[in-house]
């Protein structure tokens, strides 16, 4: 049994609004093993990015952690001081941001931005060894050293993403949170970045949380998958289990709407009805009861609890047990 790197238990995060606190993340629990990878998949607004930011302690000022426990390498992150969090950030948990976001400061050279991360956490390091580390990181992500002196805008999208990966690896973290790292990249570049991430994660034995809206991408890189809907985790299991026999109707819908390159084209001839939006749950019962084909009176009345389909596969649907 591998040791748990990160354990998240019943985490709830809310945003303060005029009408009280509205939950963006509602009672989410999962764990990441050392060297393991977890994919969090869900549509926009389902709270997956909020989880990432919550783990880093970088929530917006109007967001607050309502309840839950986060244990990282045995340490409770919820009670850690600001100073301690600053030490943990990047040194222990680093982050890969979406490349389309301006994750790199446009007025500093990329070399300096990487070095800054190293110097912050290892202030005793000599300038020479910092430079050396930076160069080797560039080697690692296959960017020519000659481009260390460049500014972020001089890189293409894929290259910039590599810089961000290099930066994330700068302090040898044990957990990386990758937030939509390939969105807005072309297929070919996406493929390259994904395989790069996969390689490092495996070789350096880094735990990873991979956040994406694209279940196909998640399926490509992660060993475990958690499906999120309206702030809560609705299904959690290994890649094979979730994809091959999705237990939750929402997962089934996600998988079903995925267009594949199989010989048989998907059936597009169905009625193109409008579908409800993904927002925080406000009604009683299962959040998808109105669009779920199998919904029963129970679904409309109360939220389902977790149903264990196997030791590694659980689903939050009252129909799940019967379905099998």
């Amino acid at each position, binding site marked *: 049994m591998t040791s748990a790197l990160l354990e998240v238990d019943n985490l709830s995060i809310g945003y303060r609004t005029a009408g009280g606190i509205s939950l963006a993340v509602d009672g989410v629990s999962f764990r990441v093993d050392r060297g393991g990878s977890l994919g969090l998949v869900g549509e926009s607004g389902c709270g997956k990015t909020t989880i990432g930011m919550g783990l880093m302690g970088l929530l917006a000022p109007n967001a607050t952690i309502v309840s839950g426990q986060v244990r990282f390498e045995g340490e409770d992150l919820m009670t850690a001081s600001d100073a301690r969090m600053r030490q943990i950030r990047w040194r222990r948990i680093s*982050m890969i941001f979406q490349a389309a976001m*301006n994750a*790199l*400061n*446009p*007025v*500093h050279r990329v070399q300096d931005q990487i070095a800054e991360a190293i110097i912050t956490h290892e202030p005793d390091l000599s300038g020479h060894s910092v430079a050396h580390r930076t160069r080797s990181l560039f080697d690692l992500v296959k960017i020519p050293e000659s481009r260390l002196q460049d500014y972020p805008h001089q890189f293409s999208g894929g290259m910039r993403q590599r810089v961000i990966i290099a930066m994330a690896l700068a302090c040898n973290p044990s957990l990386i949170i990758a937030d939509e790292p390939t969105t807005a990249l072309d297929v070919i570049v996406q493929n390259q970045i994904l395989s790069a991430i996969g390689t490092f994660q495996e070789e350096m034995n880094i735990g990873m949380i991979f956040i994406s809206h694209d279940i196909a991408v998640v399926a490509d890189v992660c060993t475990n998958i958690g499906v999120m809907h309206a702030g809560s985790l609705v299904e959690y299991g290994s890649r094979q289990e979730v994809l091959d026999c999705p237990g939750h109707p929402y997962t089934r819908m996600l998988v079903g709407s995925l267009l594949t390159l199989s010989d048989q084209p998907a059936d597009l001839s169905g009625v193109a009805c409008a579908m409800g939006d993904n927002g925080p749950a406000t009604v009683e019962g299962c959040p998808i009861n109105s669009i779920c084909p199998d919904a029963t009176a129970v679904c409309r009345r109360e939220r389902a609890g977790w149903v264990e389909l196997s030791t590694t596969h659980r689903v939050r649907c009252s129909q799940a047990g019967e379905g099998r």
Partner: protein
Amino acid sequence: MALRRFVLRRLVEIAVIFFVIMTVLFILFRLAPGDPVSRMVDPSMTPEDARLLMESMGLDQPLWTQYIYYLKNVVTGNMGVSFHYGEPVIGILMDRLPNTILLFTTSIILSALLGVFLGKIAAWRRGERIDTLMTIGALFCHTLFLPWLALIMIWFFGYRVGWFPITGMISPEVWIHPDAGFMAKALDVLYHMVLPLMTLVLIHFGSYLLVMRSSMLDTLKDDYIITARAKGLDEKTIRDHHAAPNAALPVVTSVGLSLAFSINGGALTETVFTWPGIGRELVFSVSHSDYPLAQAAFLLIAIVVLVANLVVDVLYAYLDPRIRY
């Protein structure tokens, strides 16, 4: 390489615009009613006297000849002779220019530094009382009526408390002293600068504060600030190293342009503080219909503004690596 081409292209543009401004100025001044001679009114002056004066100023020539003459003068750098002072205009302006530059460059740099520093803090602590206080304070200072404030400053600091000289740029006592050295003179000028500087900084820092604050607020929304936080940097580093330099870029533009415009914008200040600069000369020449002097002053202003624009663009490119020409 590209930058050089950009600069060359801009120089050509500047030349064209300059020519347009030059012509417009000429036309505006000649179209304006009144003539400089009638200003020198004295019932003992005969019509012949007046004609002689007109002739001596070249005002008897047809407009077209005057225009050609004027163009020739501009091209050769000889801007003519002031009607009023009877001296070459260039000499007068060059005499006044350093004074204006000294006062306004200092004041703008000081107010920009102050504005950037305070604006940074205000944005960083958005919504808190200190932010509201600073914003309202900045607004209030910014909307103060300059001559009004200047006169009150003079009254209070120059007269009531008596800390600073009332106006002027130098005190005759120091300068006519036979053994006054350079240091004494320089200190004297500095001492005289305090009041106008205080007034100008008080009036101007507000706009920089507001620009910096809103620019900084924009910057704080940028994603690399989150990156910086995620990297575990402490808040001060994030504020001073990541947010402030980016946010200060718009201030650079506004500083550059105010520097350029300050060479005329200080007319009121220079008048009230008796600062012997271009602004005072400009107001004087316009009200006395001293065409050569006024034209030259306006042209000087135009060229400084145009060149400053260019310098700001180049500087911007230097400061912001994203911009390349």
